[in-house]
């Protein structure tokens, strides 16, 4: 057991210390974070004060005040009218009214304000064309028109206009607030045994992301194991190792060590994803995107299914690696194993469309498909606990069988060079003492 630990340590450290791992683990989430955060950062950075000169041709005396009031009431639910203000950016709009008399030269005025805006990015202007409340088409002129906070201005104008229209129809403020009160749909998920739980808004997205993550990580880390075995075999390090360690210990140490590398990477990603969501969640929500609500139990299942799936496939990949002499040979030899892993990716649509059908249940019990398909069913429908446990039990039994077979093939394979063994030869290897 101590020897297995020594091997686990080597396999782990040697991979974690590589530049590729550092880049893959730390830089890539940072990069993703930057990719999402930077535009938001720059868009909201504006902040500060923005002077808006309102060139008012509307002839509506109350409109300007209504807009100003609406802008000032941001975040105050009682004053809000049919809107959910994002609060993106802390831009303060300072509105000044410039009433345009009917006879004035609008073009000259616009040129004047445009020049001002050109010199000073914080100086902008809004044109309210004549036409009254019913035909209002406000125009906003600014150096930067991709500023997220412009949405705030737009909604404020909308609220002001709707408010004035309702008032004109004879409603008082209290009635208006009552009638336009926003309604929210609460989604509750029916769980096993008839219970009810929160969430379920983004089940499909979560299910797909988890399916994909398990598939990718099992494939990538499984192939790492195979490559590791081939490296030791090709460079004849095994010859030095076998006089110190049993081949089974070598194989288990390698599989576990690389698995821990995978868990480390997933862990780092999970933490950074968590940070990303806590930092970015308000931003996303304000823009109408609901972040999926992922229950802890789902994350636990994810880790369990990743570990089981990885163990199953890594063992098979280790076995394949021990029977070949080069990476080129391995490309061919690993196809059957990889195909087993790919099948769920091809049929997952069927499962997600009808996750409780007999065929879906049966497929999610097949040990080679369970890591992906059962995971997906858990994310979508909360299958009965016995099904989840059964699939785990079947997987564990299969893993034990595979470890037994792989270990016997491995111990012979790592010392055999040259021709790839046939299936009959592999069968004979199983019986060697």
């Amino acid at each position, binding site marked *: 057991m101590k020897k297995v630990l020594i*091997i686990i340590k080597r396999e782990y450290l*040697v991979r974690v210390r590589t530049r590729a791992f550092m880049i893959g683990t730390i830089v890539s989430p940072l990069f993703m974070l930057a990719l999402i955060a930077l535009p938001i950062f720059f868009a909201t950075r504006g902040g500060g004060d923005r002077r808006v000169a309102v060139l008012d041709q509307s002839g509506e005396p109350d409109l300007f005040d209504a807009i100003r009031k609406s802008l000032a009431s941001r975040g105050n639910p009682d004053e809000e009218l049919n809107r959910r203000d994002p609060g993106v950016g802390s831009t303060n709009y300072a509105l000044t009214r410039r009433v345009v008399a009917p006879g004035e030269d609008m073009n000259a005025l616009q040129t004047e304000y445009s020049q001002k805006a050109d010199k000073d990015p914080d100086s902008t202007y809004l044109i309210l064309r004549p036409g009254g409340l019913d035909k209002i088409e406000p125009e906003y002129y600014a150096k930067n028109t991709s500023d997220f906070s412009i949405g705030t201005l737009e909604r404020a104008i909308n609220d002001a206009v709707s408010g004035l229209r309702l008032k004109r129809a004879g409603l008082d403020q209290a009635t208006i607030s009552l009638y336009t009160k926003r309604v929210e749909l609460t989604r509750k998920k029916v769980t096993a045994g008839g219970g009810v739980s929160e969430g379920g808004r983004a089940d499909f997205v979560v299910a797909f992301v988890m399916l994909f993550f398990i598939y990718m990580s099992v494939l990538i880390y499984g192939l790492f194991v195979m490559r590791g075995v081939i490296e030791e075999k090709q460079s004849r390090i095994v010859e030095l190792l076998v006089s110190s360690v*049993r081949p089974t210990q070598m194989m288990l140490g390698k599989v576990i060590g690389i698995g821990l590398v995978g868990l480390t990477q997933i862990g780092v990603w999970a933490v950074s994803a968590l940070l990303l969501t806590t930092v970015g969640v308000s931003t996303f929500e304000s823009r109408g995107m609901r972040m999926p609500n992922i229950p802890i139990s789902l994350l636990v299942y994810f880790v369990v299914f990743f570990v089981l799936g990885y163990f199953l496939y890594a063992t098979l990949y280790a076995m394949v690696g021990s029977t070949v002499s080069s990476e080129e040979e391995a490309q061919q030899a690993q196809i059957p194993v990889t195909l087993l892993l790919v099948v769920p990716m091809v049929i997952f649509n069927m499962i997600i469309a009808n996750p409780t059908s007999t065929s879906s249940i049966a497929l999610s019990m097949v040990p080679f498909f369970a890591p992906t398909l059962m995971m997906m069913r858990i994310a979508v429908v909360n299958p009965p606990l016995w099904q989840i446990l059964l699939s785990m039990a079947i997987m564990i039994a299969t893993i034990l069988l595979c470890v037994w077979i792989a270990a016997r093939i491995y111990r012979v394979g790592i010392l055999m060079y040259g021709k790839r063994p046939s299936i009959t030869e592999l069968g004979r290897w199983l019986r060697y003492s």
Partner: protein
Amino acid sequence: MNVVELKHVTKRFDQFVAVKDLSFEVRQGTIFGLLGPNGAGKTTSIRMIVNIFAPDEGDVLVMSKHVSPELQPHIGYLPEERGLYKKMKIGDQLVFFANLKGVNSTEASRRVDEWLKRLELSDWKNKKPTDLSKGMQQKVQFIASVIHDPDVMILDEPFSGLDPVSVNLLKNVILDLKQRGKTIIFSTHQMEQVEQICDDICLINHGTQVLSGGLKEVKRRFGKNTVIMDYEGPDSFLGDDLVKHHNRFPNYSEILLNDGADAQEVLKRALAAGARVNRFELVEPSLNEIFIESVTGKASVSNGGER
């Protein structure tokens, strides 16, 4: 005391019999030469001693115990085909190999420094194998097989690919280990090296023993039937009736005589033929000669009595 013993050991792979009823003993504190042509069963025998394979029949005893994982820390094995992790520093690899043999990390790094210094590799401790020459890698592999201070060492072609200076360095290390009471099983195709350092030898072919015993005794068994002669002139005087085998080297000739042939007769004929003889010596056959003759079945001396 015998440190390693094989008793009537047989190992089969399917229909192929790699080792057949093989027996030999290795005495403590000696260097034992395990010889044989390619495919004779040397590696299979060694793998049974280091507990990689189990014998189908017979017993393999190390320090009077059947081989088991518990014995592995006492055995050091330098395989013929060997390698290092490409992406791991030399020092780290050696500590890793020592750890696997049960040496703790502090002690292991102390020993690594000591060995690297001894084999003149100290500057390479933090380099990766790809930065080292093949010879240097060989020396590192040697260290990996002795880092845990084993009682029994099995060295398969330890000198291959080394320059003469390194060969000498390593040879002295091996002789020093022997001095300290370590037992060494040495496998090679370089017969001169065997003659230089081995006490006992065992020659196997097709999985069975052909020849075994003390090196001196084995050679004596073949008798002084070889003439080393340095001469100038034609070699037509060497008639078939006297000479069984003739190796003409640039500086001298090695002449293996027929059974019962008289060496003096060779000298007489040479002089009669007008050759100038600078050196004439009657010696035991070289191990190389014994090896070739034993393996090709042309041995002139029966070795049946000794077995």
